[in-house]
């Protein structure tokens, strides 16, 4: 179950047979349950391209994508095979008798993988918040009443029930973003991908959003993939990190290993979370044996207490 990318490349044809790769040789397995992945890497490293490939908004130039979800008690496989200009698609129930075709509507796939773009507030267009949140489920479910139910449920979860009858264009930036994200969540994707969701939000809105994502991940067992430049977010929330460098996956694994791996940090212009920085400084200044890889205040405090013990108040 999940998303499987093997040898996926996406290239832009520059001149005669000269390709410029946006992403190159991507091999990736993403489960559709319980994962919290942070994709990091500096600008132009192909992060946004990669998440758009997951959702089939961008079609790869070479490679094979296999995506597997449960639909109506059936295992449904979406296969995309690309080799140069030819792209073949297949939707099959068992992945044994796969019949490839030139064109297949992959709309159903997008129901399972929800993608929230950067500045999602720009995708809002309906006259009330409720209608806009309903738009996604209405497209997927083709049932107005069910869509409305879903929208109201999601609005309650995100604490925006009081906005439902308002015009989305009268809201503040943070509220608009919440509405836009609710619009994606309302179609109940198993995998939720967010492209820099916290940019331009105030600290409280940012914390709210991230805590909500954490809740989705821990309670509803959804897979969350976020693209971010904020190492504090990576440190505190992510379980797994993927580092992209010049379109290639440079690192894929736990965040602990990543922060301990100096080579990755240096070549990709990454940084350490603030708490790690503070702990590292304390370790150096006080010359104590401290485990600096703690990502939230409670853990850091416990660690300090452990090392300093009773002789320090």
């Amino acid at each position, binding site marked *: 179950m999940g998303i499987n990318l093997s040898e996926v490349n996406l290239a832009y044809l520059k001149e005669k047979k000269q390709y410029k790769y946006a992403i190159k040789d991507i091999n990736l397995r993403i489960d559709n349950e319980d994962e919290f992945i942070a994709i990091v890497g500096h600008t132009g490293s192909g992060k946004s391209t990669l998440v*758009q490939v997951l*959702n089939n*908004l961008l079609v790869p130039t070479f490679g094979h994508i296999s995506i597997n979800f449960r639909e109506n008690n059936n295992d449904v496989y979406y296969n995309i095979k690309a080799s140069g200009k030819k792209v073949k698609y297949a939707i099959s129930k068992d992945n044994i008798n796969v019949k490839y075709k030139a064109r297949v509507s992959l709309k159903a796939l997008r129901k399972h993988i929800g*993608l929230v*773009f950067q500045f999602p507030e*720009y*995708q809002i*267009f309906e006259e009330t918040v409720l209608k806009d949140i309903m*738009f996604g489920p209405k497209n997927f479910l083709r049932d107005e009443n069910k869509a409305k139910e879903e929208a109201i449920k999601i609005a309650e979860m995100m604490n925006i029930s009081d906005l439902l009858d308002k015009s989305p264009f009268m809201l503040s930036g943070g509220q608009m973003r919440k509405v836009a994200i609710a619009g994606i969540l309302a*179609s109940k994707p198993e995998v939720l991908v967010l492209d820099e969701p916290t940019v331009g939000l105030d600290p409280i809105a940012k914390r709210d959003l991230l805590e909500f994502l954490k809740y989705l991940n821990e309670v509803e067992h959804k897979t969350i993939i976020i693209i971010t430049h904020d190492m504090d977010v990576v440190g505190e929330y992510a379980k797994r990190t993927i580092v992209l460098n010049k379109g290639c996956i440079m690192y894929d694994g736990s965040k602990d290993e990543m922060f301990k791996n100096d080579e990755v940090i240096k070549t990709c212009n990454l940084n350490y979370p603030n708490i790690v920085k503070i702990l590292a400084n304390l370790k150096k200044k006080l010359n104590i044996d401290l485990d600096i890889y703690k990502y939230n205040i409670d853990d850091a405090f416990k660690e300090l207490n452990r090392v300093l013990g009773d002789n320090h108040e």
Partner: protein
Amino acid sequence: MNDRIVFGQYINKDSWIHRLDPRCKIITLFLMMIGIFLIKNIYALLICLGFILLVVLTTKIPLHKFLRSFKMIAMLLIFTAFFQIVFNTYGEIVKVNGYDLTYTFTLTYLNLGIGILLIVLYFLLGKIFRKFRLIQFLIFVALIFLSEAFILIGPSIVSYTISIHENGLYTALMVLLRVLNLITLSALLTFTTKPTDLNGGIEGIFKPFKFMRKGVSIFAMMMSIALRFIPTLLNETSKILKAQASRGVDFNDGSFKDKVMQIVSLLVPMFVISYKKAEDLANAMEARGYIPGDERTRIYELKYHISDILVYIFLVLFLAAIIVLKIGGIV
């Protein structure tokens, strides 16, 4: 997405046309267009086209880019030529090897059936094979006519004759050549001139009229902003398209009601974005001291070089030749 819009796109190469003064290019284009409209002689038009194509070759821009700009109006040209040939009945009927080019078509019930079948086939083919739609269309039209000319079984509904007249052929050819000339000329201008230069050129041309109205520089600024924002807005459009696609909008199919919804879901965000961008830009311009209609200095002053003067001399000669030939009754 950006690949589709060939017409009106700047292609960066280094050639003498690229280096010409934009004012010179605009004036030459405009006057040459008027000149070409005056010509009624096919040979003269052919010479013009040949000459323009020679100039095109010197721009170092691949020829297929020009051909692609023809593709946009190919349908229009074919229709014009077709109707001219079929319906123009002035002049003698054209003779080939002593035979009149007159054809009789008969629409029988069988032909009607074949015709409808072919139309259905054409649309079905479109679902599978999306390329060369224009050629496909022409082939199917030709097939319908062929069936009406040769398959004459069963009772006929209506019978008609089409004869090709000299005048029709002549006019069709003339219209075709004229439009080809004009398209190549304007493609030549837009391929070799940056939008900003084009704008500067227009401003330069209208400079003498400044005493009449103050709005020239404002208008030119508006034009340049509009041109500059085309790629930006295209980018935003593709972003919104993708964002809505991830909310389950399938832009490829759907009923009429769905289509309306799809367009609304694209248009409203685009309006919001455009307004926001316009507001930001206005503020940014004011912050950097832009005052509408005020005297401004330019980084790149437009200057005429020797090549521009040569082009002007050529232009004068060209127009003079047309006027002389026109008076002489040759073209």
